[in-house]
């Protein structure tokens, strides 16, 4: 035990020293949207230090600290990873790489992928060589994801894929896609889905950005017209893709729930404006010095902060608990749902905090950070829709965590 503790202490000193030497100064300042490092073939670095920081972290495998070293990861155990995270936070380091490869695909490849698939794809995620996107929702399959119709037909050693996806985040910027396709139309909907990977540069793939109420276009429509994908790109067993799909959703929810922690470093809204506290902003705009003069707003902010503090404690507890056992479980739905609602509440409070200065759209009369508050408020409305709506998360909690009966299956059995 003492030796273990000693080893962890040594790891902390070494990590601290390395970070001190290798984390560039501008990477220790709060993240700004344009400087988020996504990697990929066409990666563009607004700030050259982003690239340096990414390369240094990737070299150590610390973009994916817990992945095995043989796949390019850091090979750290959970305790070491927690320490590394603490040390990164200590110097306010920005995430070196933000990637759906890290937060979504990687974990399921580690669990379900073949050795060849791991060797092929994981190192490229670690090194930010390939940027991934997620082919899940379809125009007719939103909350009822398993009803998806994009089809993949076997022809020789390839699948031919036809159909379309929607709400594909950054499909226009991604290099590869992990995609749910129907490989059997004759069986119940959950049993005919497969999980496949292919290159977005393949012939027959096209994308079209969708403009949101915030004015931004983080999502795309994605079309597949006789796209060829080699059979070896199928992950897991044929027609068993739903298992992987659900697992990946748990990882996605865990990722999204972190936005509720007001980390200020996410890709779904919440960047520069999260640096200031809501109460600080509210007081500054009112010229208040020691007490916020609007008592109702003050009470609402206090309630919000109490909830977000207890939420942060819950995320931490979930980490402590999973360090003792399993990976993400159904509580990821709870965290996703609560985190998103908190993020939305925060945006609404910020809007109230700055009053009519939060009602501008563009141009003169408004500071850039004020316009950002407005845009991020609008962007936050998507938080409880993307990655599974809040209503779906509540269904998942009711069924999987609380064991409540499924109305659909109950009414079906009744008919028989």
């Amino acid at each position: 035990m003492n030796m273990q503790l000693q080893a962890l202490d040594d790891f902390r000193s070494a990590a601290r020293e390395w970070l001190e030497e290798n984390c560039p100064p501008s990477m220790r300042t709060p993240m700004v949207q344009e400087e988020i490092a996504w990697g990929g073939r066409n990666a563009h670095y607004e700030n050259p230090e982003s690239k340096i920081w990414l390369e240094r972290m990737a070299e150590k495998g610390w973009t994916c600290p817990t992945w095995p070293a043989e796949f390019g990861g850091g090979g750290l155990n959970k305790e070491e990873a927690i320490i590394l995270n603490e040390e990164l936070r200590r110097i306010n380091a920005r995430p070196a790489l933000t990637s759906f490869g890290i937060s979504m695909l990687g974990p399921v490849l580690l669990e379900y992928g073949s050795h060849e698939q791991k060797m092929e794809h994981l190192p490229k995620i670690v090194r930010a060589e390939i940027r991934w996107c997620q082919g899940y929702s379809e125009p007719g399959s939103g909350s009822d994801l398993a009803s998806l119709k994009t089809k993949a037909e076997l022809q020789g050693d390839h699948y031919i894929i036809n159909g379309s996806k929607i709400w594909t985040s950054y499909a226009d910027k991604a290099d590869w896609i992990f995609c749910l396709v129907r490989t059997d139309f004759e069986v119940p909907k959950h049993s005919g889905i497969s999980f496949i990977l292919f290159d977005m540069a393949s012939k027959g793939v096209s994308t079209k950005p969708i403009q949101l109420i915030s004015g931004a276009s983080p999502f795309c429509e994605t079309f597949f017209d006789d796209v060829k994908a080699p059979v070896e790109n199928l992950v897991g067993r044929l027609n068993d893709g739903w298992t992987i799909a659900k697992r990946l959703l748990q990882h996605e929810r865990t990722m999204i729930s972190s936005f509720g922690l007001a980390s200020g470093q996410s890709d779904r809204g919440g960047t520069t404006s999260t640096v200031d506290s809501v109460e600080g902003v509210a007081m500054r705009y009112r010229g208040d010095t020691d007490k916020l003069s609007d008592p109702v707003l003050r009470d609402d902010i206090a309630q919000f902060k109490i909830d977000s503090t207890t939420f942060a404690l819950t995320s931490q507890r979930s980490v402590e608990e999973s360090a003792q056992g399993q990976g993400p479980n159904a509580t990821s739905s709870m965290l996703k749902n609560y985190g998103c609602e908190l993020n939305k509440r925060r945006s609404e409070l910020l809007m109230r905090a700055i009053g009519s200065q939060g009602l501008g759209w563009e141009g003169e009369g408004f500071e850039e950070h004020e316009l950002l508050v407005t845009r991020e408020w609008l962007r936050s409305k998507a938080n409880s829709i993307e990655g599974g709506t809040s209503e779906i998360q509540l269904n998942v909690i009711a069924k999987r965590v609380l064991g409540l009966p499924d109305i659909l299956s109950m009414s079906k059995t009744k008919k028989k």
Partner: protein
Amino acid sequence: MAMVLNDDQQLLKESAKNFCRQNSPLSVLRRLRDEKDKIGFDKDIWNQMLELGWAGMAIPETYGGFDFGYGGLGIVLEESGRTLTSSPLISAILLGATAVNEIGSDEQKREILPKVVAGELIISLALDENISHAPNQITTSAKKDTNSFIINGEKTFVLDGHVADKFIVVARTAGETDNKQGISLFLVDANTAGVSITRTFMVDNRNSAKIKFEDVNVLSSALLGEVDKGFATLDYVLDIARIGLAAEMLGSTQEVFDRILEYLKQREQFGVLIGSFQGLQHRAANMYSEIELCKSVVRAALAGLDNKNADRVEIAELASIAKAKLSEVFFLVSNEGVQMHGGIGMTDEFDIGFFIKRARVAQQYLGDASFHRDRYASLKNF
């Protein structure tokens, strides 16, 4: 901050759970109520709790305790909250003993704490004077005489006041009504001349009293802590008690929720289990989420109390967060407890009503949600 229980704590939790379930089920509280019991708690059960060492959980060994920390006391409170066990655990232990332990002189601790731990002495805090918790709004006065103080004033919501042997009276020795300066604490025997006690039957069937002090003369040695400077340490003691009470509320809240879930899985209407209705499922899922948050803050706050490096501002924040959050969530879940049980939920015969009654008392005691949101905002400088 360790929010996962260690092995010793896990064992304690199991044993406390079994004890409460077997020895002090909710039917005990119902019986005490129906019989208008003179003491208001079951002495046999209290004696067994004392034998289990629950009273000395957070008291140092030097003073007859077991040094198991507030984490241990919190676990016991949580489990006793599940069965709504009525006992002096909150009045005499969480508040009384804690106050003596945190504020008293070595001599006072040696004299009082072993007796409290052994159950020979019930000591209760006489603090509130108004309809809502406001620990610095003290009008009860203590005027210095040569070797003594003369206390005059009225206190309300004094837990187990009708059976207490001693009170810790919060009184003003200087300053205006609202001042934090000028507050002092006194140990007053219940049988001192000039003390009159009126038992108040509370809606939750626990016990408290209104107490009048008329020219009550106590020696200067009855002073607990420093004269005029009692507020800061009192507030710290209250924070410990707020966290402990939040732990008890967590137990009660979880129990109500478990009962709701059980009912949703058993009651049929329209030919299906009512738990299959989305209108109820989403409410249950929301409650579950809120309760998960409550568990985290209670565990973190208890761990904070046992962390020697935690400062008092940190504890104050955790206490206000915990008490605010638990007050809101116990309110929500106890209301839903009645509503989601439908017709049977409104009957006295069914136990769920005991929880909504306890919820309102626990919510208000030591500050309700809005008190603690206000306090938290002030602690955070806004």
